[in-house]
């Protein structure tokens, strides 16, 4: 390392902070301790909705976001146009 690169060296902590924030936002949804809960919620919500409309189980997205004070549960279900008919 020469003297010039020593002066030009950028500080690294902001990069650590940013990488962690992005990574953890993702991991909290996919691996967090609440993943069991999300799986359960997904199944039960799916069952209730499927009683009234035909839905594609693949087109259901349930995510949970953990925040400081509140967590939000997001349920995203795609309902096809011809789904009005009641499931048997």
């Amino acid at each position: 390392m020469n003297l010039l690169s020593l002066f030009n060296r950028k500080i690294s902590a902001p990069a650590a902070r940013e990488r962690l924030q992005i990574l953890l936002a993702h991991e909290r949804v996919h691996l967090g301790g609440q993943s069991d809960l999300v799986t359960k919620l997904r199944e039960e919500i799916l069952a209730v909705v499927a009683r009234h409309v035909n839905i594609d189980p693949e087109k259901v997205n349930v995510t949970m976001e953990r925040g400081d004070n509140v967590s939000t549960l997001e349920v995203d279900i795609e309902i096809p146009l011809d789904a009005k008919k009641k499931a048997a």
Partner: protein
Amino acid sequence: MAKVIVVTSGKGGVGKTTSTAALGAALAQRGEKTVVIDFDVGLRNLDLVMGAERRVVYDLVNVIQGDAKLPQALIRDKRVETLFLLPASQTRDKDALTEEGIATVMETLKKHFDWILCDSPAGIERGATLAMRHADTAVIVTNPEVSSVRDSDRIIGLLDSKTLKAENGERMDKHLLLTRYDATRAARGDMLKVDDVLEILSIPLLGIIPESSEVLRASNLGTPVTLADKASAPAIAYQQAARRLAGETLPVAIPGERRSLLEKMFGRRAA
């Protein structure tokens, strides 16, 4: 009734055992009966850090399997008479710990102690989940470093889902203990700052333990750092963390943070 604390981190080598010994000794020095339990079956080390490695006869697994009574396995510290160690087994495998066995041991200890500190093994396997199972409060030991912060976040998720408190719908009390902190490197921008870690993990701060040669020195001697050089920076930081655990409200100072002459004259920095 005892307060049960788990000292945990996910990542290995961040200072769980050092912190358990230091906090346990500091709490016991307040005159309150304290037991530190090693949950790291197969890789026990709390006995060594406490300087009691040659006094281990029976261990936690012996008690659970009925080969020894609990008082036979408890080792009383030679320096602080209210401090006890319950060592882990070095020879058995980790499956020797059963959920029922741990529950029985914890129930008995709760009747006789003011503080029960559970030193968790690294990882998220059985030993770690059993160590946190009965806790009221968790001390999450974290280094200001990306992999440690990530693993701490994972452990926070487990504390909120796999513990008895969580299963009963209660809120687990979680505290961050930031260890190996170097204020100079943080100020230079080459180490995550206290506020960065707090913002990412969003749990309250129990204390900041500075990077210090005193920590290695104390473990070389088999003395909890709070009993070694009581005036050293890490000893003071651990003593204050122990007082906060006991419910005192103390401002958290950042150890080793350099202040300019002006700042010294006019108090804390203005910005």
